[in-house]
């Protein structure tokens, strides 16, 4: 049974992630008074891209060719080492620093792949991506550290197993840290107000600029990995800060409840993201550091408040 749960855990992120993209797009379409495409459209897009031929730049090296595989691998590995619907699995790679730094591998190769083709778009996309992720790292580590200190463990499964909301004296810290984390979530998953995931306007794009030269299978993997990253951050945000409904022991009922609750949490988060994207304008690039530093400072206050 544990093996079965592990298999569900391993495939949960890549299987569900295209759905969130569809849901967010659907909600955004509704806001714009459009019908919008089906919420399963992203699955069809991935399928279509997988079966297309590819064009690769003659300037590209093996970094460009293998980066999609590495980045996708990272999202799968991290997706399997964080609590999704069950808190008792306790993987050996579930230390929060391990997770943060393994995700840094994907940032590293994504940016290198962006530079590899020698296109100006890719280069500037990489530069912007690295600027944002360098500044986001402090906020990310510190927001996770806040919940780790409250539950006195840096293992994300253990954190989600201890319902930190019961520590009512730390409620203010946890909420501050969550706001800080949510800002980082938007930054790392290239959402508004940091990046516009649906634009191809060269002045604004970050993530799309880096993957501009990709096509076919590799583009599919890149897009898919980016969707996986979104679900990973949503899982961290919902299960570490609000670990309600997560399965605490091995029983079918708890697991089914866990999965349903997690899907609801994902729906809730995607609604918030969609509302945000429909109501907020993208920030000017040099205002983004202010937002990231705000996140960092909120987390520092949260940590100081714990003692």
């Amino acid at each position, binding site marked *: 049974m544990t093996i079965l749960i592990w298999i569900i855990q391993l495939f949960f992120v890549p299987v569900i992630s295209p759905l969130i993209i569809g849901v967010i797009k659907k909600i955004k379409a509704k806001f714009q008074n459009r019908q919008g495409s089906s919420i399963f459209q992203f699955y069809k897009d991935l399928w279509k891209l997988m079966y297309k031929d590819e064009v690769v730049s003659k300037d590209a*090296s093996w970094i460009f060719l293998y980066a999609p595989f590495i980045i996708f691998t*990272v999202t799968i*590995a991290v997706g399997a080492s964080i609590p999704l619907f069950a808190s008792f699995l306790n993987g050996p790679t579930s230390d929060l620093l391990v997770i943060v730094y393994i995700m840094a591998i994907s940032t*590293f190769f994504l940016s290198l792949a962006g530079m590899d083709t*020698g296109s*100006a778009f890719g280069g500037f996309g990489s*530069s912007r991506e690295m600027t944002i992720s360098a500044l986001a790292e402090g906020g990310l580590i510190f927001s996770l550290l806040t919940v780790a200190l409250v539950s006195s463990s840096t293992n994300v499964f*253990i954190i989600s197993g201890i319902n930190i909301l019961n520590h009512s004296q730390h409620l203010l810290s946890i909420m501050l840290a969550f706001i800080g984390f949510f800002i980082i979530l938007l930054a790392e998953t290239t959402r508004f107000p940091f990046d516009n995931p649906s634009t191809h306007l060269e002045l604004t794009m970050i993530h799309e600029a880096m993957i501009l030269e990709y096509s076919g299978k590799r583009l599919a993997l890149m897009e898919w990995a980016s969707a996986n990253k979104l679900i990973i951050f949503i899982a961290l945000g919902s299960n570490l800060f609000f670990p309600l409904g997560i399965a605490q022991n091995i029983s079918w009922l708890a697991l089914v409840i866990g999965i349903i609750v997690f899907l609801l949490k994902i729906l809730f988060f995607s609604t918030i993201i969609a509302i945000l994207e429909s109501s907020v304008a993208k920030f000017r690039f040099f205002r983004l550091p202010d937002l990231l530093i705000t996140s960092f400072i909120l987390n520092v206050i949260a940590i*100081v408040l714990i*003692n």
Partner: protein
Amino acid sequence: MLEIITPSVSFFVLLSIFFIGAISSLIYQKNDSIANFLSSFFSIIGSLCGLFFSVSMIIYGKNLSFIINYPYSSFFKISFHIDLLSAFFIFIISLISLFCSIYGVGYLKHFYKKYSIGVFGFFYNLLIGSLLLVVTASNGIFFLIAWEIMSISSYFLVVYDRYDTDNIKAGFLYLIMTYVGTVFIILSFLFIYKYIGSFEFIDIKSGISLIPLSIKNNIFIFTIIGFGTKAGIIPFHIWLPAAHPAAPSHVSALMSGVMIKTGVYMMIRLFVDILQPIPVWWGILILIIGSISSLLGVLYALTEHDIKRLLAFHSIENIGIILLGLGSALIFYSLNMPELALLGLMASLFHTLNHAIFKSLLFLSAGSVINEMHTRNIEEYGGIIKYMPQTAMFFLIGSMAISALPPFNGFFSEWLTYQALFQGVAQLNLSFQGIFIIAASSLAFTGGLALTCFVKAFGIIFLARPRSTKVSSIKESPLSMRIGMGFLALMSILFGLFSGYTSRLLEKIGKDLSIFKDTNYFTSASFYQGIDIKNSFASVSAPIIFVVLIIIIFAVIFIFTFVINKNQKIKIENTWGCGLNLNKRAEITATGFARSIILVFKGILKPSIQNEVEYHDADSRYLPKSRVITIHVKNIYNYYFYQPLRNIINIISLKTKNIQSGNINAYISYIFISLIIALLSVL
């Protein structure tokens, strides 16, 4: 006169190998290839012996001390004390010098007929030998002699490429800074001698209570300046980004990987071992210095486009990270938490080892590229991965290790450092907690910025299209250089994979120091479980990270290459350039890449742009003939520290000039006055 037991003989044999190497390469300096062979042969053999010696010392946990009395002086004795800490540093020195020497066999060839290889071999072997002396000497005077040999021999290696006047200037700066540092070290030893009456480290340690606290604080400040100058902490680091680019690449690797660590070694030796017990503010100061050095080091690295200066600034950053571990260890010990102190010390020792490995790997692979390109400006590189694929791979591994990406070694020592700092945040009261929060946040931002900097470095050097015509004529470096780099890359992976086992040994080394004799471990480590922090706060397991990542990546590549749409066709085409002809000017430059982050930190880096336009006709100013844009970064340490210092010295020397009138009568009266003062003071 000689009281020698068997293991000490082996240590003397070790030293004499380097000495023979030095002398013999000097003797055969007429013939470049023989001199190269002799110098490399003896340094390789010596390093191998050093490895065996230090590993056996660490594994058997033996301490070794022996003294050669020098009959004509009471305070000067050639005395050695090799405990596990010394053995650990001998290990680092031998490991790095082994691969640097192998690399040197091929690298030195391009100096043939230009400079004397024999002289190089002499100073090179002398440097390694003196490094070994520095970490084993146990007498203040003897230590200073070894320290001076190290400084002088490295100075001559820095100015080895002497036809370039910049190198002479860099060497001069290095010499001045070294001597400023040495003056402070001598001062601190004299202070100690005044109260203890001996230069022997053992006597100092046993009699440390004789020194009053205020004097001890002075000694602390002096040693921080003295050894901090060698280690390259900000603001005493200015020689480092000048001297490292000047030296031949494998000497840069040796200097950056090993020589600056002798400063760290002496800080550990003095603050953790000899001068204990110490007040808590020492640790706080070291923690703050570590935070500043790591953050400013990486920020200045981002502004550089000279590859070796960039790496030199990263050395400053990593020394900062090492000091974060050391500083937290000192604070914990002063607050009577020896278990956590051991954790902090472990973290700093582990990072010392790891930094030595990946930084020398980066310097060597940068050296291979420079060797082919004959320039250090990364704006002229580009696309080198296609011409030097193996060097590119080694540089990539080094970049990933220094950016602390798992599963390479850098991650595990930074992880330990984080744990030490997190424990400080979790367990101490508010005033100390603040310091630890600052330290942890500087480490977090440093990690992110280092990643940015190495994306920039690797991307601009190796990826995309060549940015100058020189690139198309380069080829992969010779075998011996690739062997040197390859083994260091392997070490980087192995010390990551075996981080559990390594940290077990580091605990043992820490426990060998007298203050940790009865300390319980705060961590437990084994191969499979990796490193566990007690009370299950955190754990990391390198082998499992390895296995997980490797299995998943092979599965992913297999599925998406051979299962889904396996008949996919790949067409090779030009990069899309909006219909324009893509040339090298369409690519992003290193300056452009780092520009946005420099602007974010403009409060610290103070970037400036100078715009010079020359017009075809100066009157109407419509048609610009040429535009020059100079982008500059103001160095705050120059502006706020060295500039005022220089001004003060200038003012003082102008004032003292007044007494120099050129009139003999005045000089005689000076002599007379000073004579009277001397007489009065005697009476």
